[in-house]
């Protein structure tokens, strides 16, 4: 049993407590979902269970966190290691070893178990979580979902009583998410205590016992599973929560604004017979042809490895197509022309920030020196007060807006977004969604790659899918196919 007793925590160098007077009891074998807006304190709460607080992230604590009768705050992380296991958000940055078998062994080796026992423990983890096919692989050859399964296996081999998951679904596609859900079910059935913090939680709807809603570092509501799943929609949205039933709450597909629709000069972007293959046997993209015009917001869906990123890389001119043509306003585009016209907002903004201030960042690579234009862009993105700030000091959402701002200054007519909502709460998702709507109302053509069904159905005017046909073909989804896809994706979470 884990018990928070009037627990408060303040990170070193901060003035306000991140967690305030937390009282929470988690029973053995219980599965608890922690949810709430970004920055509400979910992650901090998890860190106080796995020992990172106060040892790894120092600060001032008040009250106590108990594991059984022992205080977790007094234990060193190295003592907590075999008791509480943690799976982190980004599977890319939690691998210590370069091959999967040794990653599974990592925790056990640290515990000082003898060789035979390490092998026994890995065998148990591999059998229980069905990881045999991933053994002895280089971690660089695994997808995010596969990496995460290995990360769970590595924790499992240490046989902790409690599993802690920090936004485990943020980087996963639907298939991987449903596999994650399956693994969690197994863990729950075997009697482990599970604590999950996540913004997207539809995949947990059959599993959780309790949902805890946190706001400003305080526990505001504690719902039973039934109460939580049947929350009133308006109440849910007001609390900034994602839906538990994405297939039911399909958003109304936005209309293209009539102004743009009516204007005669809709810029036409045309792709004709685009083909790409990494190896000769299997074409990743096979003869894709489609048209798009300004005002279109096109969602591209498909599982990891279906070719979404490759398609974007070709359309932005980073990769070269093997055959096929791309036209804009009737003119054929070379790779260099594509790069000039388009702009890509990456999932991880850190790769895209090069300079020492927000303002410099916006004009980098362009010849713009028009102060007024910069002002208006900063204003539009609510970044005016950060003008002189170092981009690295901004929050994730702000960084993303800086990169979007750079696209406005570059005046790109075709914009690409790669997973813009990974790890975002409902409010931030809606903010990104309306920002994209605004960009498209100004006449840009927008493509966005995303696994986030809720986001896509709220944002896109058209949806292309690379999964349905499977052989490198892409089809446009109508309303009924969309329903069918939703059924397929969320079928396994049916009650």
């Amino acid at each position, binding site marked *: 049993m884990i018990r928070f007793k009037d627990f408060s925590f303040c990170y070193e160098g901060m003035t306000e407590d991140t967690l305030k007077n937390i009282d929470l009891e988690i029973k053995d074998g219980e599965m608890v979902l922690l949810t709430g807006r970004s920055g509400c304190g979910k992650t901090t709460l998890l860190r106080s269970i796995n*020992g*990172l607080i106060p*040892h*790894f992230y120092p600060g001032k604590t008040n009250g106590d966190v108990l594991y059984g009768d022992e205080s977790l705050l007094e234990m*060193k*992380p*190295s003592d907590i*290691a075999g008791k*509480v*296991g*943690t799976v*982190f958000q980004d599977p*890319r*940055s*939690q*691998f*210590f*070893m*370069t*091959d999967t*078998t*040794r990653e599974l*062994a*990592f*925790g056990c*080796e*640290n*515990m*000082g*178990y003898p*060789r035979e026992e*390490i*092998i026994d423990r*890995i*065998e148990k983890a*591999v*059998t229980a979580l069905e990881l*045999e096919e991933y*053994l002895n692989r280089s971690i*660089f050859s695994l997808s995010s979902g596969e990496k995460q399964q290995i*990360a769970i296996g*590595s924790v499992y081999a*240490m046989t902790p009583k409690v599993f802690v998951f920090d936004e485990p679904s943020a980087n996963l596609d639907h298939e991987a998410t449903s596999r994650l859900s399956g693994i969690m079910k197994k863990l729950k059935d075997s009697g482990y205590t599970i604590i999950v913090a996540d913004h997207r939680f539809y995949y947990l709807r059959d599993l959780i016992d309790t949902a805890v809603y946190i706001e400003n570092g305080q526990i505001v509501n504690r719902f039973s599973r039934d109460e939580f799943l049947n929350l009133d929609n308006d109440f849910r949205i007001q609390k900034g929560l994602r839906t538990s039933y994405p297939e039911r709450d399909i958003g109304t597909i936005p209309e293209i604004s009539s102004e743009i629709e009516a204007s005669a000069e809709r810029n036409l972007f045309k792709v004709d017979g685009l083909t790409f293959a990494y190896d000769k046997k299997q074409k990743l993209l096979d003869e894709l042809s489609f048209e798009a015009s300004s005002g279109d917001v096109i969602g591209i869906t498909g599982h990891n490895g279906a070719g979404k990123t490759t398609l974007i*890389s070709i359309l932005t*001119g*980073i990769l070269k197509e093997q055959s096929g043509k791309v036209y804009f306003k009737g003119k054929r585009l070379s790779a260099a022309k594509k*790069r000039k016209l388009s*702009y890509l907002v*990456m999932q991880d903004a*850190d*790769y895209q*920030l*090069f*300079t020492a201030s927000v303002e410099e960042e916006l004009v*980098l*690579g*362009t010849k713009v020196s028009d102060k007024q234009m910069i002002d208006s862009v900063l204003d539009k993105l609510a970044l005016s007060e950060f003008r002189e700030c170092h981009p*690295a000091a901004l929050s994730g959402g702000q960084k993303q807006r800086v990169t979007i701002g*750079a696209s406005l200054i*570059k005046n790109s007519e075709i914009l690409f977004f790669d997973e813009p909502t990974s790890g975002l709460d409902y409010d931030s998702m809606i903010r990104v969604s309306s920002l994209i709507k605004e960009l498209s109302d100004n006449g840009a053509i927008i493509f966005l790659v995303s696994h986030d069904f809720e986001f896509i159905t709220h944002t896109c005017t058209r949806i292309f899918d690379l999964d349905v046909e499977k052989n490198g073909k892409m089809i446009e989804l109508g309303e009924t196919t969309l329903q069918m896809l939703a059924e397929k994706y969320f079928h396994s979470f049916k009650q």
Partner: protein
Amino acid sequence: MINESVRNKITEVTFHGTARLDPRLKLLMLIILGCVSFFINGDVPSLLLMTAVTVFVAAGSDPKWGIKMLIIYILISYLNICLKYIYIPVISLMISMFGVTVLKAMPIVTLGRWVLKSTYMDELTVALERAGMPLTVIIPFVVMFRYIPTLGIEYKLIRNTMKIRGVSDSFIKILLHPFATFEYILIPLLMRCLKVSDELAASGTTRGMERTNKRYALQEVRFGFIEYLILAFVLIFVAGLFVLEKTPAGHFVIWRLG
């Protein structure tokens, strides 16, 4: 229930031959041969050293890499000698000096990359621990070892965004602004590095990385008889090279035109 096929897969090793030697020996050899490469002179001893490294690497699951580097070595040696016949003041000298430095570094790069690729990280940790190194030194060392292969992937992503932003996207721009280009690559790379190392450390901490107990690797790690034997061979070989350097054979010029 014991699942034999899973157990076999767990204990399977993908590297063979010299790659299975103790990591301590590999690192020791890297240091010894690295120093020798810079101190030894003469075409014959240098080529012998490079060949020995190639043979050693080839016997350790990576013949392609070794042979590729040997061929490059021979090519550079030839090109370097060609410079003597096309004389441009200063520039010739500079390029020739650069060539010599590259040649000296070749055995180190060949051996170094092989050590990096063929060494299991857990065996490295255990080997260093057994050698009496404190955990505070081992952990950063292992994290560095782990991060090097990721650098290439991160670099490529950064270059891609630079292309789209129109920053240093052509050869001419890079040539005109080498320092700015360097900065634009370095800053995101450092930011990522900071973030990744922080997350990696957190993940390691929760899995007992800081525990000071004795560790056992998945495969036994031992600096045994074979390791001592090979070390002795290496030392004799090095001594032989220095003796050879003093004999007439050491001054023999291999690389010449015609």
